[in-house]
């Protein structure tokens, strides 16, 4: 009952966009005519398709989440967080009008921190929810942690990350990833995440080129308006205006493209480091999407959406899942007779919090 697993053959996506198209278009139609309410069921149909076309070793994954539980999760967030928030907002406005600006500020800051905290909780719970609805060989994943503690960890680690000029951001991101994954399990096996921040530093330091780029941007700007930079440096240009505008646009676009590239390169390295150091029992996971792959994905997305006047957006989830699975690998051994059922608790409601706060699971 053991399987020697070959890394590249372990994960495979066997879906086809033509098979998925009827699902995507009917989802769009039903979501529109129900004023958006159907989106929970649409998400479920999409995931059912994506999971059932994802093969891991010898069998396909199953998604057993339902639209109803996503809907219930959404309603819970609406009542438990949305309504108090509405009143808080209203109260803060009233306080400002009455001159109690300080008190209103305190209320607003408290509200912001609450959102901050719940963003962390939501990330944790979304991952837990998704694992608990993912089955393979009749076994599911999950976590016994409800994520309340993770919310606090998320808050302080994110805040500390920005203190020394943001130099601790890679540490913060990776430690949070490890912390989150280490609380998850699949069947009787816990995930073990040992990602390190150090290998990411080289890529991350590229971000510190950004100030230099912004100086370039400022010069370009001053070039156009003949303005003055700080410190009495005056920029004059003898170029004709049209050339100046073109130069400005080139530099402007260049700066933002470069920043985007750095972010992409960093994120590619981050996910590789994180997943390459993730294991489950005798299985060692790997992820091999390079910065080029991410670029191709990104520009593919943009082209798809732009060329179809936005309708192509309904295929983005499909593309992202396919990208993720195609680059995912696992090597090692798995003993199916020793992989027993998960004993983690499952919630009856879905990822409402995540939906409301609009953050992704990864």
């Amino acid at each position, binding site marked *: 009952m053991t399987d020697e697993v070959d890394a590249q053959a372990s994960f495979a996506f066997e879906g086809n966009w033509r*098979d998925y198209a009827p699902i995507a278009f009917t989802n769009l139609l039903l979501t529109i005519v129900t004023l958006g309410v159907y989106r929970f069921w649409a998400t479920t149909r999409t995931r059912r*398709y994506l999971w059932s076309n994802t093969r891991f070793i010898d069998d396909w994954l199953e998604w057993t989440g339902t639209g109803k539980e996503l809907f219930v999760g959404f309603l819970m967030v609406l009542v438990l967080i949305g309504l108090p928030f509405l009143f808080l907002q209203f109260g803060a406005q009233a306080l400002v009008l009455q001159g109690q*600006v300080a008190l209103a500020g305190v209320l607003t800051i408290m509200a912001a921190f609450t959102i901050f905290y719940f963003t962390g909780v939501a990330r944790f719970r979304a991952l837990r929810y998704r694992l608990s609805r993912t089955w393979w060989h009749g076994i599911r994943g999950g976590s016994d942690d409800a994520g309340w503690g993770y919310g606090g960890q998320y808050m302080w680690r994110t805040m500390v990350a920005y203190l020394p000029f943001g130099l601790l951001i890679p540490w913060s991101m990776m430690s949070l990833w490890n912390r989150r994954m280490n609380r998850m399990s699949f069947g009787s096996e816990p995930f073990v995440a040992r990602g390190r921040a150090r290998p990411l530093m080289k890529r991350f330091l590229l971000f510190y080129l950004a100030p230099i780029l912004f100086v370039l941007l400022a010069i370009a700007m001053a070039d156009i308006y003949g303005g003055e930079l700080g410190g009495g440096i005056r920029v004059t240009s003898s170029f004709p205006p049209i050339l100046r505008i073109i130069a400005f646009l080139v530099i402007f676009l260049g700066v933002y493209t470069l920043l985007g590239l750095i972010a992409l390169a960093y994120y590619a390295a981050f996910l590789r480091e994180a997943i390459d150091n993730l294991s489950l029992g005798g299985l060692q996971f790997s992820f091999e999407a390079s910065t080029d792959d991410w670029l191709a994905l990104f520009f593919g997305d943009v082209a798809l959406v732009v060329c179809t006047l936005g309708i192509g957006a309904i295929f983005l989830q499909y593309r992202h899942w396919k990208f993720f699975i195609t680059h995912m690998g696992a090597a090692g051994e798995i003993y199916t007779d020793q992989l027993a059922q998960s004993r983690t608790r499952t919630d009856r409601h879905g990822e409402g919090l995540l939906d409301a706060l609009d953050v992704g699971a990864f």
Partner: protein
Amino acid sequence: MEAFRLWHYDGVTAVRRDVALAAEGEAHFRLTEPESGWTGEPVAWDDLTVIGADKGRSAYGHRALPGWRMGFAGDAPPDIAARLPRAERYGRWIDRFGLWQAAAAFTLVAGLVVWGALEAPALIAPMIPQSWENRMGDAMVGDFGGRICSTPAGDKALAALVARIDPDAEARDVVVANIPLVNAVTLPGGRIILFDGLIQQAGSPDEVAGVLGHELGHVRHRDTMTGLVRQLGLSVLLGGFAGDTGGYLNGVLSLSYGRKAEDAADSVAIAQMRAAAISPAGTAAFFERMGGKGEGANMERAMTWLSSHPLSADRRKRFEAAVQRGAAYRPALDAAQWRALRRSCKSDPSVEDAWGRPF
């Protein structure tokens, strides 16, 4: 004929079994793996649920046993296929009616919901007790950040104007605020705020009387509450809770009540002025003067009374037509009172500067 084989997981371990299915009595069946001699517990056909049935791959689960699965590739023999549950496609309700019928029904319901969201506030608002609205308005506005202008003479003049336009004291509070916008607002709780910019812009007290009468119409018809209910309803309907820090004061200040409500408020203004023997000609002149600026002054228009009270030639004509020939009109305020009202903000030493404190 080769026996029909299925795969099976028991939901306890991940071991995959290669099983045969044998009916047991009317309602049950049992899975067995001949090679290993493994035999499962009897399972009721009715307990089966569909996990997936696509691309010639079928998988079924068990209602009470998480992780229990059986499945097969291709088609099942007819006697087994007949007992298997049918897969859901779009969701139970939609499958029952069919996609297009369901989509049509949803469109109808969606239309009703949108229509309801637009119409219901006018029905709901009058049901909210006035005392609630008053308390809410007071909580929202307080002293308007200290911007309310008050001098003994100015207050007396304003009271005289209010007494003529609103003899029954329908508005709980009418004040002048030290804000240089040509604007007047009605806030929840029957509170009317005239901005100093409006009073300075007005050529005569009759013009201010017309605007006051119009705002009184909003108070009488509880239009502000209707607008608030509508806003609340829309934000709930559209799930617009997340990240909406737009703020309710801005909401109230920029509420537009709709054409019907504005017309009704104009009717109130005309009726009150007639009862008080104040000529509507001034208000008509005010419309003409404000409209005369044309489309060019868009930014300015956006900040004035006109933004929430759309200007139209019809409205001006309506006030013009309301002027009765031979009627014995009296000015809304005498010259001394009018002077006092106009000086109210300038000569109030304790009033807050217009932009001195944030809202």
